[in-house]
């Protein structure tokens, strides 16, 4: 079957969802809450992070509404502070960090390496429970009055000058941190020790490489945040500590420790997204990723460099100018691998045979927006311009381009791409393409004006602002509404498709990954018997041979 249209759905009249699959194995709430099956845990994660995403999103909506007018008239200043703090905390620690790794990654890593499950299934479940505990603590914090430190817990503000619920928020982040440590640990072990026969490092899908890199960051970075928050909580409770100058501490020490995690955290958030894009772009251009090794190693390079650049968040904070130089230089180095990836993806299309299903559209969106996000990162990494642009809306726009424009696009792309594998059913194509378009437009309308606002000098975290900034803020708010619709649509039609979607069959995209060579939804142990990897990753000739063989069998029968 040379060059079919990619989506080859089985004959819908006869097609059935396989009787035996991980969803139907056992029923009952308990079978879900006590499961050690990575696919079920991934599903649990998917539901919970979606929940928190929409809470965070609602808060974002409030922020945009408040900023519609120059005065702080919708809500009082301290309410506004609480709203954006909770938005930051929930989005960063309860959505972005676990988004791709804990859901898509959890679902795919074992299948992609050809294992029955993650190396430590119970630890995996534990990590979900930790996440839920963290979520509850965060909700508790919000219920009893919220916290207004911003997600950065800046000392001495957080330890000494605020009387909001810093402690419960801090502990929530602490617990969420451990949940992501356990996920990362599980991935590293699985990728090292659970690969099926023939699955060498350079036959791994790039999704695995990028999740591996992200896991390294999770495992090594997060504990530092954990201990830092413990010190903050201690300082707040016993009124002596190492961060408040009033006690002889050093607030910059907090900045160092905090950003030692929180900068790598940015890569924890974006790397898995990059992995998704590699898979999607390859599949829908029917072509091996251009420069496989380059992309693979650029992920590892990002992971390694990530530990050397954190102080570029502190250029104006009175760190030594010479240290600023060192960190700025290293920041420039870490920017390169991202550029490499972008170009490799675009060249994957070259001489491919490209189709434009929804995941591909999201992937295109990612490539465009991430390019902007990355380049504006260089604006902020260069010490000179950082002085003018940092702590303004330019920063806000920058990291929303990377996080929302990058990671969220990748997340949606991945969800659509693996939805048929996950549920065995297709989502409505046209509608989802529309959603992708709406998201893209809404996103740019929301966040691009903020670059200009930042250049004009509008500081971030302002409840009220000088009137000349209003016009652009109105644009931004308008865009936010569109964006909101763009995010609501997928939830609706994906839920709809659970019941009414067309039966997908094993491999609707004709993709080459091991996960597509098993039934969908997969068995609890993923494969009838442990597969043997006898070809390179993204080997479409191999796939076509397989298909031919299967056809002949069917003819024989």
């Amino acid at each position: 079957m040379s060059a079919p249209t990619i989506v080859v759905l089985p004959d819908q009249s006869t097609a059935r969802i396989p009787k035996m699959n991980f969803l139907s194995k056992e029923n009952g709430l308990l079978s879900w809450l006590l499961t050690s099956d990575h696919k079920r845990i991934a599903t649990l994660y998917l539901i919970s992070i979606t929940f928190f995403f929409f809470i965070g999103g609602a808060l974002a909506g409030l922020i945009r509404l408040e900023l519609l007018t120059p005065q702080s008239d919708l809500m009082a200043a301290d309410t506004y502070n609480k709203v954006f703090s909770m938005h930051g905390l929930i989005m960063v620690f309860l959505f972005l960090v676990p988004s791709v790794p804990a859901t898509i990654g959890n679902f795919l890593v074992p299948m992609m390496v050809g294992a029955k499950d993650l190396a430590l299934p119970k630890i995996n479940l534990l990590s979900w429970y930790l996440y839920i505990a963290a979520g509850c603590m965060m909700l508790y914090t919000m219920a009893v009055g919220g916290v207004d430190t911003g997600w950065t817990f800046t000392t001495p503000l957080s330890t000494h000058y605020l009387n909001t619920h810093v402690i419960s928020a801090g502990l929530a982040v602490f617990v969420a941190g451990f949940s992501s440590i356990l996920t990362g640990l599980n991935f590293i072990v699985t990728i090292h020790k659970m690969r099926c026969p023939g699955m060498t490092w350079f036959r791994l899908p790039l999704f695995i490489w990028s999740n591996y890199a992200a896991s390294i960051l999770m495992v090594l970075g997060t504990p530092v945040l954990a201990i830092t928050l413990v010190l903050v909580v201690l300082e707040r409770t016993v009124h002596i500590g190492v961060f408040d100058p009033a006690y002889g501490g050093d607030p910059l020490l907090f900045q160092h420790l905090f950003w030692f995690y929180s900068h790598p955290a940015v890569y924890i958030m974006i790397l898995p997204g990059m992995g998704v894009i590699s898979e999607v772009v390859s599949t829908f251009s029917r072509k091996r990723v251009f420069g496989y090794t380059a992309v693979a190693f650029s992920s590892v390079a990002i992971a390694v460099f990530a530990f050397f650049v954190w102080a570029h968040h502190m250029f104006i904070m009175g760190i030594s100018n010479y240290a600023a130089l060192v960190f700025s230089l290293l920041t420039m180095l870490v920017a390169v691998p991202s550029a490499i990836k972008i170009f490799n993806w675009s060249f994957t299309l070259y001489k491919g045979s490209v189709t434009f299903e929804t995941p591909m559209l999201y992937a295109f969106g990612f490539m465009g927006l991430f390019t902007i996000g990355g380049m504006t990162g260089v604006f902020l990494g260069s010490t000179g311009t950082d002085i003018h642009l940092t702590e303004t809306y330019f920063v806000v726009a920058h990291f929303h381009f990377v996080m929302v424009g990058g990671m969220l696009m990748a997340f949606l792309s991945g969800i659509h791409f693996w939805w048929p594998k996950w549920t065995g059913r297709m989502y409505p194509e046209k509608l989802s393409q529309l959603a992708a378009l709406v998201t893209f437009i809404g996103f740019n309308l929301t966040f691009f004006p903020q670059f200009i606002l930042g250049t004009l000098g509008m500081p971030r975290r302002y409840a009220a602002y000088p009137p000349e900034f209003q016009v652009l803020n109105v644009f931004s708010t308008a865009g936010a509404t569109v964006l909101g619709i763009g995010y609501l649509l997928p939830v609706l039609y994906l839920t709809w498709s659970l019941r009414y979607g067309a039966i997908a069959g094993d491999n609707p995209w004709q993709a080459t990954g091991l996960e597509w060579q098993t039934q969908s939804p997969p068995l609890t142990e993923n494969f009838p018997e442990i597969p043997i990897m006898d070809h390179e990753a993204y080997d479409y000739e191999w796939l076509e041979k397989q298909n031919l063989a299967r056809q002949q069998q069917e003819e024989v029968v």
Partner: protein
Amino acid sequence: MSEPSQSNGQSAQGEYREQHHIVSPAIYAVILFVLLCATALTCGMSYIDLGEWQIAPGVTLFWNPVVAIAIACTKMSLVVLFFMHIKYSRRLTKLTVVSGLFVFLTLIGMTLTDYMSRAWGRW
């Protein structure tokens, strides 16, 4: 961190054999003895003033902490190598340990680049 040579997790059974290397109690006993001696040594050392070294005006290195840390590191490596069987375990595990120390030193070192150069131009 990733080791292509380690590549195939499950097929290469041979690699697992040395995992089960059993260290004889005699070695453990020797290590214990050395560790206790080192403890006594570091404790005694702290009562002697080993003096200091003027690297640059304002930058002095006191020998006591240096020696104390050196001894502690020796003890650590003994524990890691023998009690924790690193000496007999696979390259991947060794690599893990090394990378851990590396990142730890990164945290310390890179932070110190700030603290140490803050006063530059002020003396």
